[in-house]
């Protein structure tokens, strides 16, 4: 008898799952909550459940007919820890409902490609330009209006106006403060091919930012120059890391003396681990490829029913408040002029980025091929 109870209990759990699924189904259509932005602390899903239970269906028609309580769905490859607060600000100011699905940038790009016509997303907010390019290439992004694009310098936007740059990060060299002083570091990142750096370099060749850097190198130094650099670094037996974070941590620990990373991870480490953190940033002085600017950006999906609201969202992200947030809280570069940045950052105007379209997948493919040929990947 006990086992019948057991089976019954299991069956009930499964039924519960099906029931929740049914509720979720109606929610997906248009209802839901506006609390997606604070996903980081887990409060949002509770309210999502309650609301969807309470409201059941009917929400969809209501929203469509009255034109109020529009809801935006954002697929974000940027973490809740980073953009949750600024999305909450937007919700507060616009009164709009915004739901956010957080995930890995590339995985969300693949998801949008699989969803095709049926994507529930209105906006794709990506960590790097390459992923936006992958989605744009399949004609899944709409062209953005001038008022969204114009606040941001052209070099940080999609050449076709399909996505807008929202924040920037510079490539820097992180160095271990016990092993090195800034004076001992070479002027250009190209000089790290010198044998004196044998066994002292850390990098993350599978990481999108480093690949973007190599793409830039192919354009400024030519195909052969880029190959030479990759081979030179490879000859110095660099330690390979998973990403910027692990590279920086390893530099601070003294596993390697220098690491090629994005600039802003350091500031988070300092925040959390204190001034004693064993690594600092170095901006190569030559001012060209060594200090390439990568952007995080966003675009609106062709399948979106809420284009106007989505444009409003993007407009907010390139507006002064949001840009100031990125400068102060995530330690990134604001891409809009007139927003004050931290003193520690080399001003954007002093960093000359080469003329490249970081969302051009053909360029990316060429880079991956070169990295494979040189044995880096």
């Amino acid at each position, binding site marked *: 008898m006990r086992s019948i109870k057991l089976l019954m209990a299991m069956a009930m759990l499964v039924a519960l799952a099906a029931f929740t699924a049914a509720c979720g189904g109606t929610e997906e259509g248009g209802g839901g909550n506006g609390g997606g932005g604070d996903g980081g602390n887990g409060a949002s899903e509770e309210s999502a459940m309650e609301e969807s239970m309470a409201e059941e269906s009917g929400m969809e028609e209501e929203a469509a007919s009255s034109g109020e309580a529009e809801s935006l769905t954002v697929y974000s490859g940027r973490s809740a*820890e980073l953009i949750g607060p600024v999305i909450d600000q937007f919700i507060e100011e616009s009164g709009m409902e915004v739901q956010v699905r957080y995930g890995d940038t590339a995985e969300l790009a693949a998801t949008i*490609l699989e969803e095709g016509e049926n994507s529930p997303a209105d906006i794709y907010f990506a960590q790097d330009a390459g992923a936006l390019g992958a989605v744009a290439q399949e004609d899944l992004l709409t062209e953005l209006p001038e008022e969204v694009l114009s606040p941001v310098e052209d070099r940080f936007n999609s050449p076709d106006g399909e996505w807008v740059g929202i924040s920037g990060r510079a490539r820097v060299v992180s160095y271990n403060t016990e092993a090195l002083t800034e004076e001992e570091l070479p002027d250009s990142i190209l000089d790290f091919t010198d044998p004196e750096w044998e066994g002292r370099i850390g990098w993350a060749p599978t990481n999108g930012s480093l690949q973007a850097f190599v793409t830039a190198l192919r354009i400024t130094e030519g195909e052969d120059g880029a190959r030479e650099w990759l081979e030179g670094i490879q000859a110095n037996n660099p330690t390979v890391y998973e990403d910027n974070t692990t590279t920086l941590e390893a530099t601070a620990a003294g596993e390697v003396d220098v690491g090629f990373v994005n600039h802003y991870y350091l500031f988070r480490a300092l925040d959390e681990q204190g001034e004693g953190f064993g690594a600092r940033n170095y901006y190569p002085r030559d001012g060209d490829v060594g200090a390439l600017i990568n952007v995080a950006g966003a675009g609106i999906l062709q399948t979106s029913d809420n284009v106007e609201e989505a444009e409003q969202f993007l407009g907010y992200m390139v507006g002064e408040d949001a840009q100031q947030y990125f400068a102060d809280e995530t330690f990134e570069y604001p891409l809009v002029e007139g927003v004050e940045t931290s003193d520690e950052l080399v001003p954007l105007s002093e960093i000359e980025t080469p003329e490249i379209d970081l969302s051009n997948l053909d360029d990316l493919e060429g880079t991956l091929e070169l990295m494979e040929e040189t044995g880096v990947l």
Partner: protein
Amino acid sequence: MAATNKEFRKRSARPPRVVWLPALVVALAMLMPLAYLVIRSLDSGWVEFFETVLDGGTLAVLANSIVLAAIVTSAAVAIAVPLAWLTARTDLPGRKTWAILAALPLVIPSYVGGFVLVSTLGPRGSLQGALEPLGVERLPEIYGLPGAAFALVLFTYPYVFLTTRAALRGLDPALEYASRSLGRGSWPTFFSVTLPQLRPAIVAGALLVALYTLADFGVVSLLQYDSFSRAIYLQYRSAFDRTPAAILALMLVALTAVILIIEARTRGRARYFQTSGAVRTPRPTPLGKWKIPALAFCGGIVSLGLFIPAGILVFWLVRGVSSGEPLRIVWGAAWSSVSVSAMAAAAAALAALPVAILAVRFPGRASGLVERLTYVGYALPGIVLALALVFFGANYAPWAYQTTGILVLAYVIHFLPQAVGATRSALLQIRPSVEEAAQSLGRSPLNVIATITAPLAQRGIFAGAALVFLTTMKELPATLLLSPIGFTTLATSVWNATSEAFFARAAAPALLLIIVSAVPMYFLVIREREK
């Protein structure tokens, strides 16, 4: 006797509908990821397909993965079987506690475990820091094969440990007593009597370890081992190209098929039924002078797999809080994790029962195929499986897409073999004559399953459900892509923080994940005590 009575009995008999129909549904669900992969693989035609398959680099990483899986599996068995025996059959002090602790490394997500391992045992990790006064400037490199294998062994051996321990406790010691009474020593008895009886359970656990190793991405990427799953992820992450990723994943399925064939050979045909109705509780073997080494062994493994990772998490938490980071306890996320994992565990246990009954009671080609099919979803990297369900969900079942329902379905497809393996091992220990007797008394097949089979196999069913629960708790890719929007679990909270290097913020949910997971583990052990 009526025809139905025979249905349960002989291997030539046809299984009753309550068994084959649900099993068929399960098998069809399992075909979904496979169908998706075939569709995607052929996106750019056969030429690219064969170019990718026969590429020298691809074959080299495939070889890397095979080497890794072989090493991890053997090492996991070598660690887990003695641990299982020590905690189940000896007078080891505190063996119940050891049993829970030894199983817990399973709940540590590999993206956390790998990271912790690097920061502890890295060339300049905290261990080196501690040894610095002794003049140790650098520890040997852990990156590459040794580190990846080490980490994977630590976080997967519990599969073998749990299946083996469950089998040991379900084992009638009568045969061992007979062997001892005939003058054999305890070691020869263990190797010639106990071990062969444990073989199905060990092989079931080892299979899970091998396939987990093939599919894992977290450890191999953090420890820089160029494995096949890493190659698959790189296709998505660097090249944004789903076609080569799908082709590689199909190759992984093919490799899985080969491993399953090897497993079928290793598993053995023998059945070990209990000779009497009741299992006697075996007398614990006194360890004598081996007590100290045995304790050191358990302590060493548990320290590496559990205490050190948990300790590092506590350290991160304290360091963050002391530099002003607010302590956020994510109860909401914990509740989401537990409820969705419980649903997945229950659904998987229900789905596994017909598959296991079919495989054990009605062996044959079709039932073997259904059972093997359940392993497909398990051997695939999470992202591949998640995208398969994104594809089917968004395009063919938009009403269910990104709901709890499809999320639970994804978990079941992903983790079902854990439940099938445990249920199967338990069924193997039940003599079919009991079921036959009930049948001959006129009970319906469903009634027999509910009142005879399931209760007798309940230890295995619960063990399987617990495994599914624990692995669902830490699942990431499917949760991120398929959950209802805004749904936050402990695993996604940890990931959200670690992906941006907020270690202190990752520590609280990660610790909560371990603590919450310890609860079902505890009940698993307590349940055993009642028996």
